[in-house]
């Protein structure tokens, strides 16, 4: 707290963040890996993830993909879903931070997976980047950067496919880039 405030005899109403998180190791390559796809139930997230999975298999040698769905974008993922990903997948792609509550929950889900040792690329729209960044900082992972993508809720399947193709290189970079 500001020294001037404590000198006036004021108590501090603010609590500091307490979370301690760990950064998961990245994989050397996606070739031969199993990729988890976390559909947070946001509009068209399933269509975007499906196309991302197809591209990863066709162009990056991914062996398989596993899609799981949350009940609501505004709820954190059930631990059993995260545990399943941790047991069966090498990395995860999580879509999409495109509202306030879903951004908070998606950051939390991504960092829960990172704590479980699974590198996780979380997708975020520009409008919610400031929220994503502060949530990551609150969670003790200021370094946790999203993969940026335009909003998909009102786009056609063809437009979403184009967006998927455009962001896959960024997803691959997030999941494979050297530690540190």
């Amino acid at each position, binding site marked *: 707290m500001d020294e001037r405030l404590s000198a006036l*005899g004021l108590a*501090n109403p*603010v609590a500091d963040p307490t979370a301690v998180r760990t950064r998961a190791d990245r994989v050397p390559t996606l070739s031969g890996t199993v990729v988890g796809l976390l559909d947070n139930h946001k509009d068209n997230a399933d269509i975007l993830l499906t196309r991302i999975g197809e591209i990863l298999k066709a162009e990056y040698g991914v062996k398989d993909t596993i899609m799981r769905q949350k*009940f609501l974008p505004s709820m954190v993922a059930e631990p059993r879903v995260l545990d399943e990903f941790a047991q069966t997948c090498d990395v995860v792609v999580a879509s999409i931070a495109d509202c306030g509550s879903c951004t908070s929950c998606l950051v939390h889900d991504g960092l829960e997976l990172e704590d479980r040792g699974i590198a996780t690329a979380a997708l975020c729209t520009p409008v919610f980047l400031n929220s994503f960044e502060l949530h990551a900082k609150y969670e003790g992972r200021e370094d946790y950067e999203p993969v940026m993508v335009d909003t998909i809720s009102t786009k056609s399947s063809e437009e979403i496919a184009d967006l998927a193709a455009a962001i896959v290189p960024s997803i691959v970079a997030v999941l494979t880039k050297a530690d540190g």
Partner: protein
Amino acid sequence: MTSDVSARSATAPSDMTEILYESGWSDGLPLVPPYVERVQEFVEASGRSAEDSLGSMPPNNGDVTIEKIATNAVMAGCLPQHMPAVVASVEASLDPRFNLRALLATTHPSATMVMINGPASEDLGFTGGSSAMGPGNRANATVGRALQLVFRNVGGSLPGVTDKATLGNPAKYSFCFAENEAESPWAPFHVEQGFAPEDNAVTVYAAEGPHNLTNQVPREPMSFLKGIASLMANLGSNQIYSMGDHFVALAPEHAAVIAAARWKKSDIQHYLFEHARLRMGDVMLGGWFGERTERYTLWPKWVDHTDPEASLPVCREPGDIKVVVVGGPGKHSAYLPGLGSRCITRAFVPAS
């Protein structure tokens, strides 16, 4: 903590007001200075120690200690005797079923409504009578505000950054009232939730705010409740998608008409569950997923998601519709739409 009395006395009240604004602790309204001595009084009134923790609060995972709650309650303008209710409100909001993480981050405008029940309500200064949801009562205004300040300063909820509400909601400044138990024909809400009549309790609900129901000629329950049902079933509702609890606040005069026909609360809930319905074909026009009805996984399984003529309820069962009695004379009741999470009730023991 140390205090410098000379520095404090040399600070003009107007300067202190500005200092507190500059601190970043304010909701936009002036704050009462949280002097350490005053905070200690509030801690003592809670009946707990300053270091006692209720856990961590999202989104910043701040440690929710009694001292932090007391500091924010002082700033909100509470009295020491309000502390047990404030602490219980914070505790209720931390229940996972309330989904505070979503509430504090969502683009939806829901705020945290606090309702007070129990025999101590009046002694503590709360009102459930005329203008219960409006201004003019210190206990109502400051206890609701204290909870919001805890969200800001302990939870790190910052409008425009982590609180991404598109429009926001005036209820996010404060939204607290008592149930009008004296004029309710039914058991108090907290008793329905399993608490004893002699208990005191708070209930939190993620509410948009009161949507008025005017009926100046209520003659019998069905025609009156049809109006409430029409407010509950609308195409803009967040709860088409998220379901969850709903909240209905009946004016005493309206409640009396229903009770005179020997209706129980459960009768009201069943009627509203049956009549607050949406036509599936209309829901397909908008909502969250439009025609992609397979994405609405929270809808009851017994509703045919593919039939445009199917009748969609706004919640999963009658008990999800919470009904209370609030307000003074007049024929205006209210439906309070919600975020789609659960009401949570917690007991509190008034300060001795």
